[in-house]
Structures are given as structure tokens and as C-alpha cells.
């Protein structure tokens, strides 16, 4: 049984103008549990708060009801007041008799009546309140960044700059990601390598940053501030600590005909390789699928030529478990496969390429040394057709493409068209588009230069078919503005393939219990207000894993994610919200319904041994709520049939009591 004090605020005339506050405090004095009831001009004032404090002392109050303005205004104030007088802040309830009563009702009689009812409901609730204490959990002051592209690199650098250790896990042998494969960047046309590689070097040299390249995250346990992550370091058969990156082995390896992923298969590499000259870490990696030594034990050339003795054919995958306080997901994107787009003859002709392949063709470090040559015959192309939105905004073709806009294609296609015309004025460049979208700083100017200064032919319309004929590509297209069919004999066709999240993201999301949308992009905690946080506390999003982004946006988000991580790691303890879900283990049936609806993955199940009334023990599967992760929405409480799951601060019996009090 509580000892409740009721404090009715006049709020000047804001409340007292429509509500007979005297009548309210008198009526509420008779409610069960109430031992003191008063009213005052401004409860939130120092004098008002003193009334509360004095009453707490004098009447040994255990619960407080303040009938005043919205709890959104002063709940925190009155909780502090209560706490300073020695009672638990969560023993305070507010009856909102201003915003939801005096301000919306004109008649004093009904206003007063309603104020009494709202007060009664608050009293009924406080009668069932229990003191709540927010949980405290320590924070491991180390961050994990998953993905070593520009998003991951930037996030890691920013966190490390703030003085916190960071680990980057990159599944490829080198960090750098997609940006490393780009030639120039829009709209400034500076060279991607020139701006990226210094950052890669920074990462390598930063004492706070560890790079786990050629590695993957395999298990995630724990919660915000306290993640336990298992990282698999795939065997690279070259000891990272010894390899000098001299490259001797990559020149002597007899296995020469392996498609080079970095150049998207447009040239070859050896079975032992360094992806590109500026790779970080700059160490060789043996491709076990192609290495003779690993496959049948016959070779060993690299070992012989390695003066450092870094080759280790017996290497095994290594697993290590590290603790982290925060995790940043920066798993990036990939162009979607083009093999289903038969109409563009991508699979039939080598001269139909994707934009990323085009980047490599234009890149000085690419397969052609930066010369624009047709992949099929090495000839210089004269007529180029760029097709935009291949697989993007594709409502009708969900089975092969994507419904969303890939966002970056308009700009990079303009860039490609412009660069082509700039380097090779003898070419004719056609761009087929649905819309040209250029919302970004200097973007539209850039696009207009392509059209106006560089004479790129922009045609609104879709390419219907590309058919290889002889050494030409017959392009059939429609011009929607002129409303006519167009036939172009092209030498090279470049497809602006839609981009999609990296395939590794889905299993990762499951491990992190971070939610994804139907396209496998990670969802934000709030689309507007918390764009770089995932709904799972302590998991942050950086770059294209959250949605298509260009480089400046990615870097901006990377920085934002880093600042959120820094904010988290700065704390020694995390103070939770005490209004969290709590299961009654004796009643839990272990059905998993609550687990399914929890947006935060805060609920797990354990097999626990219970002593039964007949003194036997029984192992039962029961739910457990991680209070550091639970945000207190209460969804699980309704999914729970037995009512074993309840929400502290908003318990079933409290809400029932409020309903009863209102409907009395």
C-alpha cells in the first residue's frame, strides 16, 4: 500500500482558469492510498517543488501524483524533485490536466470532472508503481568497423582520431573497396586513387587501427558496449608480418591465367597476388583454388623466390574473439549481375560492359593502361552507347532488377561520357536515360557541361535491344521526346548497372540482429532523426550498406557514424532506460513469440533449471531480456500469451488500473 501525495498545479490560470483545482485536490484526497493532497500556483517553481519535498518528508510519501502540464514538459523535473527528497523518481506519475484538459475544454464543470478522472488514473497507477533503477553496463572502449571501403576507412580514421582503438574487418586481401577501382570521381574529376590511397596509408599507419584483411565476422554476441565478435582470418598462406610486398612471388608464379577480380576479369593475375600496387596491407595472398602447391603439392615456386620466407603453405583459418563497445557496418555495395539482362547482350559480347568495368578500362592502372580499347579486339571504339538505369527503378522486373533508384549512375555516366569525349574527341557518345537525376552540389552543372561543352548525346528513352553483328553492336532504342525508334551501330555499350548491398550483409544483419529492408539495405533506427544508427543499440551504419550513396555522402555518413561511436565510447557506463521488458520466468513457456517481435533483438532464450514445487528440478526454456538493449516499446508484452512478459513502468496491471479508474 502506497502513501501517495497529490499535487495539483494551477499553472497560473492555464489550468485554474478552466479546472477547479481546489475541487480536484479535494476529490483526489479520498482516493485509495492518498494521504496528502494539495494545490499550488506553480508546482514546477522552486516553491512548488519545495511543497512536494516537504510533503514527502512530513507524510512519508512513497508515491507522487502531480496534476499539471504534460509529462513531456515536466515529468523529468518532478522526478528529480522526488529523487532529491529521497524517493525513487519512477514513483512519480503526472496527470496531464493542462494540454489534455484545461486547454481543450472550455466548461469548468466538465474540465474539473475530467481532471479528477485523470488524477484518479494516475493515482491508480502509482498505487502499483515500483521503484525502478536504470541498469548500468560498462563500455568496452574499442570499435569494430566491418568493411574496409571508403566508408569503413573514414569511420575508422575518425574514431581513431578521437583516441579509441578500432579494428577494420575486410573480407578482401586489401582495404580500399569500390573506390579503389574507380578512375576519376564526379563532379570534380579528381583521381580516386589520389584521394583514397593516402587515407589507406593513414589507416595502415595509425597505431589505434588494426586491419583484419582477408577476414570475416562469423559470430556476434553481446550488446551495446559489450559485443563479443568472432573474426575469421582466412588463411592467406603468406605471413603478413614477414611479407615485404616486394612482389617477386607474383611475377614468378607459374599460374598465370587467373581472371583478375580487381580489373573485373578483364585481365589476369597469378595464383599468388597483390590486388593492386597501393594495396593495404601490401602483402601477397595465395589463391588456394588455383595454387598448384596447395592443390596437389607440386610447385613451391613462390616459397623459393621469397627471400623473406613469408610463404606458409600450412596456414589455416584462424579465429579470434575480440570485445567491442560499438560496431559499424560498412559493407558497401556491388553492381547487380548482368547475366539476366539478355536484351543488352552482356553475356554475348565482350564489348557490352558495365560502368565499373568501364572505370577500369579508363584507369591508368587498369587492364589497358588507361587507353580506351574494346575488350574484344583491342580496337579504339568510335561510337559509345551508355545505358542508364539497367536494373534500377525497375518495377516490372523485380526478379532481375531493383525497384529503387541506384542514385549514383546518372552522375558517373555523365562523368564517363564527358571523360570519353574529353580524351577522345573523335568519338560519338550516346546516353539513354529515363530521367537524369542530379541533386547534389555542382551535379547539375556537371551534367550540363557534358551535354553542352562535350556534346554528349543525351536521349530520353530506353534501349530495347543490343545485338552483336560483326564487330558492331546494333543498338535499338526509342527516343521518347522525338517519339521515334533509333538504331545505332555502336562499338562499345556501357551499362549503368543497378547497385545492391553486398551479399555478406544479410547474414551479418542476422548476427547483429539489425533489421534490413526488403532490398537488404540496413534500416536506420529512425529514417529522419537517427539515420546512422541501426535499431540495434551499439550498431551503426556507414555508407552504401544503408542505401545507395555517392562518395561525399558516404564520407559524411561515415563521419556521422564515427561521431556516434565516439559519443558512445566516451562513456564509462551506459545508463539504461529502466522501463524495460521483464519476463516472469516461472510463467514463460518459451514459445519465442516475444523474440520474434522485438525490434532490437533484446530477447534471447536460455535453458534454465528450476526447482519445482515437488522438489524436483526441471529444465525449461525461458526468455531473457537484455536490459541494456531493450528500449521499452512493449511489443513483446502483447505477443506473450501467458502475460509472462511485462513492461516495467507500464505493467499490465498498471494499465488495467488506469483503465478501471477512467471507466469508473
Amino acid at each position, binding site marked *: 500500500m502506497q502513501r501517495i501525495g497529490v499535487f495539483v498545479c494551477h499553472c497560473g490560470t492555464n489550468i485554474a482558469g478552466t479546472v477547479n483545482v481546489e475541487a480536484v485536490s479535494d476529490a483526489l484526497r*479520498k482516493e*485509495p492510498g492518498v494521504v496528502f493532497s494539495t494545490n499550488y500556483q506553480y508546482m514546477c517553481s522552486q516553491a512548488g517543488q519545495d511543497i512536494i519535498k516537504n510533503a514527502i518528508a512530513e507524510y512519508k510519501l512513497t508515491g507522487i501524483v502531480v496534476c499539471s502540464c504534460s509529462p513531456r514538459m515536466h515529468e523529468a523535473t518532478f522526478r528529480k524533485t522526488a529523487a532529491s527528497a529521497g524517493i525513487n523518481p519512477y514513483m512519480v506519475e503526472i496527470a496531464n490536466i493542462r494540454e489534455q484538459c484545461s486547454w481543450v475544454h472550455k466548461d469548468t464543470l466538465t474540465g474539473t470532472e475530467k481532471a479528477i478522472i485523470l488524477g484518479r488514473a494516475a493515482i491508480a497507477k502509482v498505487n502499483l508503481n515500483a521503484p525502478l533503477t536504470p541498469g548500468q553496463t560498462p563500455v568496452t572502449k574499442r570499435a569494430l568497423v566491418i568493411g574496409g571501403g571508403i566508408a569503413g576507412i573514414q569511420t575508422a580514421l575518425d574514431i581513431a582520431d578521437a583516441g579509441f582503438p578500432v579494428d577494420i574487418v575486410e573480407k578482401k586481401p586489401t582495404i580500399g573497396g569500390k573506390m579503389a577501382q574507380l578512375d576519376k570521381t564526379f563532379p570534380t574529376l579528381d583521381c580516386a586513387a589520389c584521394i583514397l590511397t593516402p587515407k589507406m596509408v593513414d589507416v595502415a599507419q595509425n597505431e589505434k587501427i588494426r586491419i583484419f584483411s582477408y577476414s570475416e565476422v562469423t559470430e556476434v554476441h553481446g550488446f551495446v558496449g559489450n559485443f563479443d565478435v568472432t573474426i575469421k582470418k582466412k588463411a592467406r598462406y603468406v605471413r603478413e608480418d614477414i611479407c615485404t610486398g616486394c612482389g617477386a612471388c607474383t611475377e614468378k608464379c607459374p599460374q598465370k591465367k587467373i581472371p583478375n577480380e580487381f580489373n573485373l576479369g578483364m585481365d589476369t593475375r597469378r595464383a599468388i597476388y597483390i590486388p593492386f600496387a597501393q594495396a593495404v596491407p601490401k602483402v601477397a595472398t595465395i589463391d588456394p583454388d588455383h595454387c598448384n602447391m596447395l592443390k596437389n603439392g607440386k610447385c613451391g615456386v613462390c616459397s623459393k623466390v621469397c627471400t623473406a620466407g613469408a610463404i606458409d603453405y600450412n596456414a589455416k583459418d584462424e579465429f579470434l574473439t575480440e570485445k567491442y563497445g560499438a560496431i559499424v557496418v560498412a559493407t558497401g555495395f556491388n553492381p547487380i549481375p548482368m547475366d539476366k539482362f539478355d536484351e543488352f547482350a552482356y553475356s554475348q559480347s565482350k564489348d557490352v560492359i558495365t560502368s565499373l568495368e568501364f572505370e577500369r578500362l579508363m584507369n591508368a592502372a587498369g587492364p589497358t593502361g588507361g587507353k580506351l580499347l574494346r575488350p574484344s579486339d583491342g580496337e579504339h571504339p568510335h561510337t559509345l552507347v551508355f545505358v542508364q538505369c539497367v536494373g534500377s527503378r525497375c518495377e516490372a522486373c523485380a526478379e532481375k532488377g531493383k525497384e529503387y533508384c541506384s542514385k549514383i549512375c546518372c552522375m558517373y555516366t555523365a562523368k564517363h561520357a564527358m571523360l570519353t569525349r574529353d580524351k577522345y574527341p573523335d568519338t560519338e557518345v550516346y546516353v539513354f536515360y529515363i530521367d537524369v537525376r542530379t541533386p547534389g552540389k555542382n551535379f547539375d552543372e556537371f551534367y550540363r557541361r557534358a551535354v553542352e561543352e562535350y556534346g554528349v548525346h543525351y536521349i530520353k528513352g530506353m534501349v530495347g535491344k543490343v545485338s552483336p553483328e560483326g564487330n558492331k553492336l546494333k543498338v535499338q532504342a526509342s527516343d521518347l521526346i522525338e517519339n521515334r525508334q533509333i538504331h545505332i551501330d555502336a562499338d562499345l555499350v556501357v551499362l549503368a548497372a543497378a547497385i545492391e548491398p553486398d551479399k555478406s550483409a544479410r547474414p551479418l544483419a542476422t548476427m547483429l540482429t539489425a533489421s534490413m529492408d526488403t532490398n537488404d539495405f540496413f534500416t536506420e533506427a529512425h529514417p529522419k532523426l537517427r539515420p546512422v544508427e541501426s535499431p540495434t543499440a551499439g550498431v551503426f551504419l556507414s555508407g552504401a550498406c544503408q542505401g545507395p550513396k555517392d562518395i561525399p555522402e558516404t564520407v559524411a555518413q561515415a563521419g556521422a557514424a564515427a561521431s556516434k561511436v565516439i559519443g558512445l565510447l566516451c562513456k564509462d557506463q551506459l545508463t539504461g532506460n529502466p522501463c524495460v521488458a521483464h519476463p516472469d520466468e516461472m510463467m514463460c513457456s518459451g514459445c519465442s513469440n516475444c523474440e520474434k517481435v522485438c525490434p532490437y533483438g533484446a530477447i534471447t532464450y536460455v535453458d534454465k533449471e528450476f526447482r519445482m*514445487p*515437488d522438489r524436483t528440478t526441471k529444465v525449461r526454456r525461458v526468455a531473457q531480456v537484455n536490459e541494456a538493449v531493450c528500449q521499452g516499446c512493449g511489443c513483446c508484452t502483447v505477443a506473450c500469451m501467458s502475460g509472462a512478459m511485462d513492461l516495467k513502468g507500464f505493467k499490465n496491471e498498471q494499465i488495467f488500473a488506469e483503465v*478501471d479508474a477512467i471507466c*469508473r
Partner: protein
Amino acid sequence: MRKIAKSALDSLFAAMSESKKVYLPVDGEGGARYQLWTEGTVLSEAVNTVRSAKDFFFPQTENLVEFKMEGKKLDVIDVRRETEDFVIFGVRACDVRSFDILDRVFLGAPVDTYYKNRREHGVIVSLACNKPAETCFCQTFGIDASAPAGDIVCHMTDDTLFLDAKTEKGEKLLATLEGVTEPCADSAADEQKALIRSRLDKLPLKGLTADKFGGDKTKEFFNDPAWASLSESCLGCGTCTFVCPTCQCYDIKDFKTADGVRRFRCWDSCMYSEFTKMSAGQPRLTQKERFRQRFMHKLVYYPANNEGIFGCVGCGRCLAKCPIQMNIVKVMKKLGEGGDKND
């Protein structure tokens, strides 16, 4: 003894209704049940009602008392009203006996005044069973379905209803019906009785006997291993209890009304796991103990306190209604045959 043509039953009920409310079995969805007679209500021919007639004296819920509270103060408000007189027509022999069994509980000292109030105002008009069902075994407990007890005992032939007052209450009521009934010989219903008796002899459970049971048999049956197998599939629901005419366990609960607290009692079942649960412990831990309690009570404990009268009347409702078809007949046969003690 008086009689009335079956076709004129309406006038009989109308005449009874003049002084008292009349309840009688009426067919409906899911079986027959007692309903207040109004013009046009037709008497059911079903052998028995789904719910027993105990509701009239021991209703499923009954308000006991109300409380009003303000601050630390409390008021106790007696909400009881004197029950109006009523007639239950068409009570079968088994259910009539069930009143006797309930009386011994509720009217034994200290008297349950709530029960007494209803009991005193009810007149029981019983009706012999023309077509006892295969599930009937009232004979096991010495009940004669051809000659039920009751304030007025009735026999129905194809065309006539015979009424025979057996008590003062019955005679009073029958006297008010003189206008609609006509006198007849006391032996008028004998033929019908004989017919019923011959039918009773052919019932499949005719041979069932309760001889092995009784008030002194606690030790003999309590620890019989057969309880385990008999109760194995019991769901722990309250169907048997709630359709049983003699089950009388109840719970007392409080309900918060609009302006106070109402204390009421409602049927409870010893088959429920919560029945004996205390904050400190639970004397009947598994369904086996709860199951055993129900049958031991009817076959041993009740007779021990009531001159050997069994707490079952053989109405057969539990035979028809148990979700898993476990029932007192199976229990009696199994235990009567020596249970599992020989295993």
C-alpha cells in the same frame, strides 16, 4: 394422484406459473436446459439436461456480500434478498437425489443460508425416465428412475401426465392445480412404472455395483497404482465437475465493481491445478492427486460422512461430456476389479 392430458401440459404450466415461476427442460442448441416457462415453451423429451438442476440451489455464481470503501473505512453490505417461490419441473430421479446429497453438505451445521434460502423456496416436480440412456447407472446407487423422489412425482405416458404429491409442499402446489388436473387412481401410473423398470433392467450399466466402495475404504483405494493410469490423460478441465449434479466445491472471489467490491462464490473444481495451491505449497501436485480426490470424494469420503450414501447419482453426464472419455464408471470398474495392485 391426479392426471392431465399430455396435450394440455401448457395449461398445467400456466396454472403453476400463476403462483410461482416454473422452470422446465427445454430443447436447444447443444441439448436440453432448464428455462423459465412462458407461453409456448415446450417441455423437452431428452432424458436429461446438459447442466444439472443444482444451479437452482447452488448457482454457478452467487453474490455473497458487497463492500464499500473510503480511505481506511469499510462498510459491509448484505445484498441478499428472499428468493421467490419457484417450481422445477421434470427433474429426473438422479437429480432429485442430488439435492439430497447437496442438502447434507449445505444444510449440515453450520447451515449455508444462501443455499437454504433457495432450497426452501423451490418445489421439485420430478418426472420418471421413460427412456433411460445407455449412460445411466442410477440403479448402482439405489435410485429407481421409475419412482423418483420429489415434492410431486410425475409419470408420463404417450398421452397422459400423472402427478403424485409426496410432500406437504407438493400437496400444496398440487392443490392449486385442481382446476386443470383431474383425479385418478393411485395405481394409474403403475403400468408406466413397470415399463420403465423393464427398460432399466436392460441398461448396459445395470450390473455396475458400488459395493466395493464406502466410507471405510480410504486405505484400500488411496494408494492404488491404478490412479496413475486412470488419470494419465485427464486434461484437468472442469467439465465433469460442472455438469455433475453433486459436485459442490466452490471458490470465493472478489470483483471490483463500479463503486465497491462484490464478493461472490462460484463453482470451482478439484480437478483444477490451482484448487489447493497455496503461496507456501501445494498438497496435490499432479493431476493424479486431483483426479483421485474427485473420485475418492464421491466414492469414499462422502459416504464416510453421510451414512454410506455415495456422492454420485449415476446421471451419466460425465460419461457423455468428458473430453477424453474418462469417467466414474471406468474408475469404479478398474478399482473394483482390484486396480493395479496386482501388477
